[in-house]
């Protein structure tokens, strides 16, 4: 790639920023980089040409930049979110955490701009690897384990995607990333779709999300809730609009996620399940595939990133200040953290689609699109999920943290930078609700939808009011309990235990036995052969045999010390190697 086009690409700012961070942190100037990079990128996306960064790599044409309206709306919200996230984590001292966040954002931007499947795959994997560190940096045993599961699931998803890409290349020798027609879709396309769906957390391959996000760091979760699933929504919207399967799966997702959000106890787990529900709206909109539905999916992605991040920031502020995120351990915090409450409630109100907030103008677009397309069943499912949204995230979550029974937990208001980030996000939620044209202008198709009609208002006010009544009637029954609920991760978490048992019992016994045999038979045999050889050749070349034997012994010792057995170091090494390859690919 030409050096001039490198600086067209917003991801290169984040990669460069990640490289510069360690140097700047030496001079205590980390914060400058943290703010400057997202600002530059946010400014840069307005100046992108339609196509750039086309290069030839081993006979494949890689397209690093392809821009149209669909790309633009996602780039806009991704860079805006990177800025809000950077403000929120200004107080974090660990440079490595910031590097991981920057590389994660770079992966997301790179995927969004990619014009071919190979480029997508490179940035897709960068996203998965970098975000894993946002979990590991919490440094608790549970987080380390959850991070491995997250990485393994995403590696599996990446392999499915790669298999689809290979098959596709074999079928039609074309890796350009464009819309796939429903009629002509082959096995290859469906494999690619499954790879994308894993990142969009479509059940039954969704369990990584509520498993990993609650274990991430406070600031890491704010980044993670914005980028992985919404990048997947973007690639699905680009390649697979109109696939009936997505419409049905999306509607199921909305109810599945919200159902768990109603019963979970950990605040961040509630929010994580609720991502599944919200992304369901977008997947459903893409599956319906009309101009209005795809517009709705994009608008909802934009609005959702802001209010879900706001919710994660509010709950994260509580976790940061009190060390607690479980509803049964919290309660009555409104006297001690009133501002965090105000911002979280704004997020909850927006996600529930109150008039004058961003949810009102985005979610309704998808529901209306389902109605216009005469998908009554989808419309009913999506509306029911809206009821559950207000119930779980709009009322239950703030009620049991800030009101309910006073837990007596000591707390102070969050640091200024966290509050500033929350003010920023709150402002966007309300701004979009009052002035929806700002968002509608960015959408890929012309918008003929008016959210503020009398009937829509009446419908929304009824849904919100009577959900409130439902909560009021059932508040005792909804009381949080210190439990967590089984989900489909049971299969691989228990499956892994079976595998570990097989590895630790039968295989290890067999291994010990083979080892014993080798020690008694093999070692003696080798020694005997060595002796025989040295005796046989001792006249002329015994120094050579001796020398090589010594060399082997020493080499073996070295190998033994190299293999520390710590998987972290192996994975770290692999990631480092991958980063170097990536940087070479991007910059050469």
């Amino acid at each position, binding site marked *: 790639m030409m050096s001039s086009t490198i600086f067209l690409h917003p991801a290169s700012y984040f990669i460069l920023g990640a490289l510069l961070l360690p140097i700047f942190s030496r001079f205590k100037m980390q914060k400058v980089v943290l703010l400057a990079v997202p600002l530059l990128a946010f400014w840069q996306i307005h100046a992108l040409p339609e196509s750039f960064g086309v290069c030839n790599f081993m006979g494949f044409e890689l397209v690093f930049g392809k821009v149209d309206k669909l790309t633009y709306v996602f780039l806009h919200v991704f860079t805006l979110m990177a800025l809000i996230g950077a403000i929120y984590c200004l107080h974090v001292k660990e440079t490595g955490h910031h590097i991981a966040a920057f590389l994660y954002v770079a992966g997301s931007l790179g995927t969004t701009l990619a014009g071919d499947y190979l480029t997508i795959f490179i940035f897709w994997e960068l996203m998965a690897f970098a975000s894993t560190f946002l979990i590991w940096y919490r440094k608790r045993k549970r987080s380390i384990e959850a991070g491995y599961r997250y990485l393994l699931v995403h590696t599996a998803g990446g392999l499915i995607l790669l298999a689809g890409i290979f098959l596709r290349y074999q079928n039609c020798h074309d890796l350009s990333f464009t819309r796939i027609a429903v009629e002509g879709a082959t096995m290859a396309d469906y494999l690619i779709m499954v790879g994308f769906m894993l990142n969009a957390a479509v059940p039954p391959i969704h369990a990584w999300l509520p498993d990993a996000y609650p274990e991430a760091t406070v600031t890491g979760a704010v980044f993670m809730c914005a980028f992985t699933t919404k990048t997947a929504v973007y690639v699905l919207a680009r390649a697979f609009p109109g696939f009936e399967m997505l419409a049905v799966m999306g509607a199921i997702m909305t109810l599945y996620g919200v159902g768990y959000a109603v019963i979970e*106890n950990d605040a961040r787990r509630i929010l994580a399940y609720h991502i599944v529900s919200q992304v369901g709206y977008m997947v459903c909109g893409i599956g319906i595939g009309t101009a209005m539905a795809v517009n709705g999916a994009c608008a909802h992605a934009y609005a959702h990133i802001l209010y879900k991040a706001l919710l994660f920031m509010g709950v994260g502020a509580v976790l940061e200040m009190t060390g607690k995120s479980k509803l049964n351990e919290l309660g009555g915090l409104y006297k001690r953290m009133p501002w965090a409450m105000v911002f979280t409630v704004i997020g909850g109100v927006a996600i529930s689609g109150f008039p004058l907030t961003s949810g009102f103008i985005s979610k309704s677009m998808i529901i209306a699109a389902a109605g216009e397309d005469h998908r009554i069943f989808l419309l009913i499912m999506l*509306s029911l999920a809206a009821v559950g949204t207000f119930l779980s995230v709009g009322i239950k979550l703030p009620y049991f943290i800030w009101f309910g029974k006073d837990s007596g937990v000591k707390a102070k208001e969050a640091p200024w930078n966290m509050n500033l980030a929350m003010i920023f996000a709150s402002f966007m939620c309300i701004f979009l609700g009052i002035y929806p044209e700002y968002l509608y202008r960015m959408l890929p198709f012309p918008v003929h939808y008016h959210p503020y009609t009398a009937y829509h208002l009446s419908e929304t006010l009824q849904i919100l009011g*009577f959900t409130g009544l439902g909560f009021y*009637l059932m508040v005792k029954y909804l009381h949080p309990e210190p439990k967590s609920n*089984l989900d489909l991760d049971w299969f691989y978490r228990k499956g892994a235990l079976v595998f570990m048992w097989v590895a630790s019992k039968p295989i290890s016994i067999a291994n010990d036995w083979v080892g014993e045999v080798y020690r008694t038979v093999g070692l003696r045999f080798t020694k005997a052969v060595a002796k025989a050889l040295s005796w046989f050749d001792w006249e002329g070349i015994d120094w050579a045999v001796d020398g090589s034997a010594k060399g082997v012994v020493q080499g073996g010792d070295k190998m033994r010390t190299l293999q520390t057995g710590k998987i972290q170091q192996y994975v770290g090494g692999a990631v480092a190697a991958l980063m170097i390859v990536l940087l070479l690919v991007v910059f050469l």
Partner: protein
Amino acid sequence: MAQILSYLQAHAKVLKWVFFVYLLGTLLFDFLVERHHPHFWGDSVIGFWALFTILGCLGMIVFCKGLSHVWLAQREDFYDSEDSDNDE
């Protein structure tokens, strides 16, 4: 901020009545609203979404909480303890 909220909490009874009046208001508003493009039959029934919501909301709470109680709910260290059993 905290004072306002404390004040409101002290007058919870008034708030409750305000809330019920609001619910009634939404139903009355539904009588007046013009329905230009009903998407399906439910859109032309007055108070449909109120009924839909309260039934859906109660149904969802009972169904999800019930499912959680009889099947899904586990101790929060459910997976952890299995691990440590294995280590021993």
